[in-house]
């Protein structure tokens, strides 16, 4: 069982977004941190558990690919975490963020 991230994950999400130059999606994720917290699980191990190639897992982790909902659930399940602990979708504007709260 891994430690739960804050529900919005905004701080870590924006940090991971800043690391990767090319973004095909606004969806951010905590996979790197969760892997580290889950006993430094390797990308190859996680990829095998969720049934994708290591290249695809790297692309997901770097925000270059948004996985299907099924794969997203499998990733969350691998960490015994909730979907929104793993993936975040930042609001487009502060107004949208307020209306969601």
């Amino acid at each position, binding site marked *: 069982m891994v430690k739960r991230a804050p529900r919005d994950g905004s701080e870590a999400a924006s940090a991971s977004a800043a690391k990767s130059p*090319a*973004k*095909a*999606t606004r969806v951010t994720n905590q996979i790197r941190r969760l892997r580290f917290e889950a006993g430094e699980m390797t990308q*190859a191990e996680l990829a095998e558990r969720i*049934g*994708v*190639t*290591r*290249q*695809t897992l790297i*692309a997901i982790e*770097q*925000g*270059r*690919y*948004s*996985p*299907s909902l099924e*794969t997203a659930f499998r990733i969350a399940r691998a960490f015994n975490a909730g979907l929104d602990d793993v993936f975040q979708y930042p609001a487009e504007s502060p107004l949208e963020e307020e209306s969601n709260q």
Partner: protein
Amino acid sequence: MTFNSAPEERSAWIMLVLAAVGYPVYLALLLGGLEGRPLTEAEFAWPMLWTIGGSILASFVLHALFRVFTDLDNNTRDERDRQISRWADHTGQAFVVAGALAGLVLAMLRLDVFWIANAIYLGFFLSAVLGSIAKIIAYRRGFSATW
């Protein structure tokens, strides 16, 4: 391209290189066999068939070589590969349609079969180039299923 890249990305590079080499080879064979005759009298069928056959053979050999020199995990396909493949094929097919339409129009205008065949072949070539580039960009820059 690295040995660590996805199999479909390697495949796209192979296709791009073969298209980029194959079409100039075809043109060289075509123009080389002219010997002062007008272009429409050129023997285009054999250069075309040789180029297509050579590309298929070279593709087979290059894919086999990559399979030998990379690990097994690298040769499996997953959801991202399938999505990118569909999107890139769809993008490249625009030129197949354009080539077919050009062929149709040229046939309606009763132009020489040389121009009809070459318009269609050019469509195939551009489709291969565009589809490969689209695939490489999707693997390198990122891909969203909403594209």
